[in-house]
């Protein structure tokens, strides 16, 4: 009887250990793709990156050489336009959710923002195509920037709200007790206290849209040359990677890897910066 019980106990312990090992293996499997992608990016990308890559325009179709300087600059311009749209709307909307409004109304707004975050990015491309490209009869940097900016709004809104809610109420009360107007309290005390978190949210949103390709396919469209006019099609790094990846030329494949390495490096720099900013706590859960 006693030994039977001990056997049973041993079996249960064994089962527990077995499941632990299985869960560990699952964790390893989840992380494996990350390692593999990195490995290949370094292996294929590093050899293709050279000075030309950062200084030259793309070469003629099929000819070796050339670079992606216009795509890198184009991506920066697009992200810049997107920021002008996404950051003010997202941050101020987040302030409203955290500081004003009724509980019920805010619950709904929050809900809509979360649902909006799940809208496929290609949908934004189609919508902006209908809104801007069809109306103004042409692909443009503005259209691409708008598509990316709209994607940023719900992202930034939610992170801003979360970090503002973390500001202790005592700060607000102290400021109001000094006779400072409510809006000045919010701008100079609450938002200032939460500024690190707000910036973190903005950076994460930038990292996210910097790699977006689908919404740019038929808004920014891509361009093999310099673009000095924002109402014209513009090149973007993710677009260029896509075009080169599905092309039949070996040299373009090499360039695609190089572009991918540059893009991922940029995105990870932002992520490292975020980690640095949030070494303490108070990081919005994204």
């Amino acid at each position, binding site marked *: 009887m006693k030994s039977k019980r001990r056997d049973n106990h041993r079996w249960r312990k064994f*089962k*527990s250990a077995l*499941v*632990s090992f299985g*869960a*560990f293996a*699952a*964790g390893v499997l*989840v992380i494996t*793709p*990350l390692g*593999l992608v990195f490995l290949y*990016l370094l292996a294929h990308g590093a050899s293709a990156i050279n000075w030309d890559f950062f200084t030259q325009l793309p070469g003629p179709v099929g000819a070796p050489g050339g670079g992606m300087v216009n795509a890198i600059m184009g991506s920066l311009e697009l992200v810049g336009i997107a920021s002008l749209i996404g950051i003010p*709307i*997202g941050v*101020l*909307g987040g*302030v*409203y*959710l955290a*500081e*004003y409004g009724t509980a019920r109304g805010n619950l709904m707004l929050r*809900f*809509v*923002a979360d649902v*909006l975050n*799940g*809208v*496929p990015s*290609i*949908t*934004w*491309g*189609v*919508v902006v*195509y*209908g*809104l801007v490209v069809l109306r103004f009869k042409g692909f443009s940097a503005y259209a691409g920037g708008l598509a990316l900016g709209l994607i940023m*709004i*719900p992202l930034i*809104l939610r992170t801003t709200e979360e970090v503002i809610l973390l500001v202790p109420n005592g700060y607000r009360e102290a400021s109001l007790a000094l*006779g400072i*107007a*409510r*809006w000045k309290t919010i*701008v100079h005390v609450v938002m200032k206290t939460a500024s690190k978190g707000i910036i973190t949210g903005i950076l994460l949103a930038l990292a996210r849209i910097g*790699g*977006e390709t*689908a919404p740019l396919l038929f808004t920014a469209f891509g361009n093999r040359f310099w673009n000095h006019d924002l109402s014209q099609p513009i090149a973007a790094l*993710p677009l260029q*990677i*896509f075009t080169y*990846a*599905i092309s039949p030329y070996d040299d373009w494949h090499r360039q695609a890897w190089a572009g*991918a390495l540059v*893009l*991922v490096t940029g*995105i*990870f720099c932002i*992520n490292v910066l975020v980690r640095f900013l949030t070494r303490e706590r108070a990081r919005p859960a994204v």
Partner: protein
Amino acid sequence: MDVATTMPAEAGSAREKMAPPSRFGDKAFEWLTLGMALVVILLVFLIGWQLARGSTLAIQKFGFHFLTTSTWDPVAEQFGALPFIYGTVVSSLIALLIAVPLSIATAVYLTELAPLWIRQPVVSLVEMLAAIPSVILGLWGIFVMIPWLRDYPFPALKKIFGWTPFFTGPIYGTSMLAGGIIIAIMILPIITSVSREILRSVPNLQREAAYALGATRWEVTRIAVLSYARKGLFGAMILGLGRALGETMAVTMVIGNTPQIAASLFKPGYTLASVIANEFTEATTDIYLQALFEIGLVLFGVTILVNLLAQLLLKTMKSSLTTRAVQ
């Protein structure tokens, strides 16, 4: 805060000097922020309206048949979205089948079983996986994953399961199965991190009670944690499904882009998002463009519904947690 009215009357002279605080700034700021918050709702309607407006002709011409016929012939101007719907559903299901067990097991490992020092680094790595852009995963898929799948796992699958209709026919590499696998990689991080949040929100009392009854670590997880968090985990899964349905670039690069309905997962397929990505700029006729807008509308409708369901599940899970904690 109306300072002026609450000041004692004796301070009359001081009151004269101090201008009464203007409420204008407060009101303006509140309205401004409200306007920005309402943009979110506006955007939902904007998307719906724009997609519906862009596809009116196609909706009128094809009606309900659009969703049930499988001819996609731009030259003859015949458009049926069934192959794309089929491709989207099948590739997402494959992705869920792979990603859900792996991510939930990882989340369980990270909250319940792993040694403490291992948890934070792994969480960071999962977050980094989430940061890889879709197009880069697609690039890796084309040049690394597809050749590998074609040479090793696919022939093995064919050998073992070749008697079923799902693993028959020639192996090209680009296929429905490859598409499903790449989507699985894309949705692993989100399901993992949402599940982890859910498991972390399970009150510790639950675990302690089970431990006190002499349960082993796995029994505690199964009895006290998993059954408690069931609804939230289901929500995490549905959220993953929403992402899977809309995943575009990586899938487009590996699924083969052939509009067909085939039982074999080795055959190429096509998804709603990929057909928009590939054909939108090639749409030369109005009706072709309209059909693509309608596909966008279908995709938007489905993802909105799926996301609504996911958010509802996650929200009710959270609210039931707080009420129970109060009790």
